[in-house]
């Protein structure tokens, strides 16, 4: 090789990244930049969108081999997503951050947390009708849990190729709850229902009952749907650390250090699944559309159960709190409070809505646990 040929080869090697660029890589780099814009300028879930956006840009630069065997992001992916560890550690943090006291004051609010998950199952059927296979349909339906870690846990188990779309849909729609829910709430409730005043929220739960809550739920759900025990167990372990009052350091670590480090790595690795030629296809748009529908159906089912409770309680329960039965905590509760005050400025629904919202958090892991256990029993694991 002559020196001139060597120089030319050298320059050719430096430009190889450009020559192997696919149009879909460019599009996904644009998506990564859009996530930066949404996170930084619009304050849409910045803690997640910024690492996701960066991960997305990293894997769409050709020849970087970030997601190849032994690659920088592949190591995190294999360690935390493939093993389902990251979503569980996030749950540990969520459990430590959540005060279930609002829910325990009025245990009937658990039921609204159940109704807020029905969209999962309805969307699952719709996804089947649109030609997705069963495992893909389950992964799409679980977006309706409105709960990022649950959606990631289930889709990484059943349809890892949809993980990027499912995770982005779950987290985006969670932050869009204040836009998605109000029109549905307005359309499905009457003026009389909207202005229903609810009583004063008195404190009535002892420390012992709050302490026993995570233990009882873990044992109960564990026996009924054992395959979901990692989800329930990590959420309730976090809550037990918070409520037992003697391991403040562990509780704070779960809420801060663990949750922050894992959120960063989780975001990066989710972004790393969004490789242009694999991600840019009509199927992704379908997943995003079905995810949106799932959240709408959750809200509708929650409102209908709220209306039923309104009738059964002698018109003492405001059906709007049914919309807070989602797992998007505390966004859904805030939406209910805001909408309730729009129709009756003297109405304070926030405590009840927080209770239903906390019920939605438990509901989403219960629904996922049931799906995992039923599919396992059917031999679809």
């Amino acid at each position, binding site marked *: 090789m002559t020196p001139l040929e060597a120089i030319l080869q050298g320059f050719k090697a430096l430009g190889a990244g450009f020559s192997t660029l696919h149009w879909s890589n460019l599009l996904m780099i644009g998506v990564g930049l859009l996530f930066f814009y949404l996170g930084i300028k619009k304050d849409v879930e910045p803690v997640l969108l910024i690492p996701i956006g960066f991960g997305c840009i990293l894997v769409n630069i050709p020849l970087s081999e970030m997601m190849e065997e032994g690659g920088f992001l592949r190591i995190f992916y294999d360690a935390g997503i493939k093993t389902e560890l990251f979503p569980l550690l996030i749950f540990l943090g969520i459990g430590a951050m959540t005060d279930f006291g609002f829910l325990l004051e009025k245990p009937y609010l658990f039921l609204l947390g159940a109704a807020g998950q029905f969209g999962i199952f309805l969307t699952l059927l719709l996804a089947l009708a649109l030609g997705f296979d069963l495992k893909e349909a389950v992964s799409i339906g679980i977006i309706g849990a409105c709960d990022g870690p649950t959606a990631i846990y289930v889709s990484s188990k059943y349809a890892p190729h949809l993980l990027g779309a499912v995770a982005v849909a779950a987290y985006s729609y969670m932050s869009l709850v204040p836009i998605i829910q109000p029109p549905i709430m307005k359309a499905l409730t009457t003026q009389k229902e909207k202005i229903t005043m609810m009583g004063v929220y008195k404190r009535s739960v002892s420390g*012992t009952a709050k302490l026993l809550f995570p233990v009882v739920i873990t044992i109960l759900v564990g026996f009924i749907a054992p395959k979901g025990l990692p989800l329930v167990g990590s959420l309730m372990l976090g809550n037990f650390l918070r409520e037992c009052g003697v391991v403040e350091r562990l509780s704070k670590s779960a809420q801060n250090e663990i949750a922050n480090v894992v959120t960063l790595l989780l975001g990066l690795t989710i972004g790393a699944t969004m490789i242009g030629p694999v991600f840019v296809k009509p199927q992704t748009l379908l997943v995003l559309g079905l995810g949106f529908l799932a959240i709408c159906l959750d809200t509708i089912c929650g409102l209908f159960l709220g209306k039923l409770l309104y009738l059964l309680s002698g018109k003492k329960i405001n059906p709007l709190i049914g919309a807070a039965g989602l797992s998007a905590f505390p966004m859904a509760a805030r939406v209910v409070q805001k909408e309730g005050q729009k129709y009756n400025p003297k109405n304070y629904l926030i405590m009840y809505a927080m209770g239903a919202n906390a019920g939605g958090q438990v509901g989403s892991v219960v629904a996922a646990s049931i799906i995992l256990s*039923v599919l396992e029993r059917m031999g*679809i694991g």
Partner: protein
Amino acid sequence: MEKWNIGVGLLMVGVGGTLLVLGICSLVMELLKRIFPYKEEK
């Protein structure tokens, strides 16, 4: 056809099971509240 059967089965068991489990949770917590009642701090 089989995927439809499983899908409908999941819908029924999922909706019913979630409601049942959370219903039981609400009853258990109601019971716990009665066994360990809240006492005002002095």
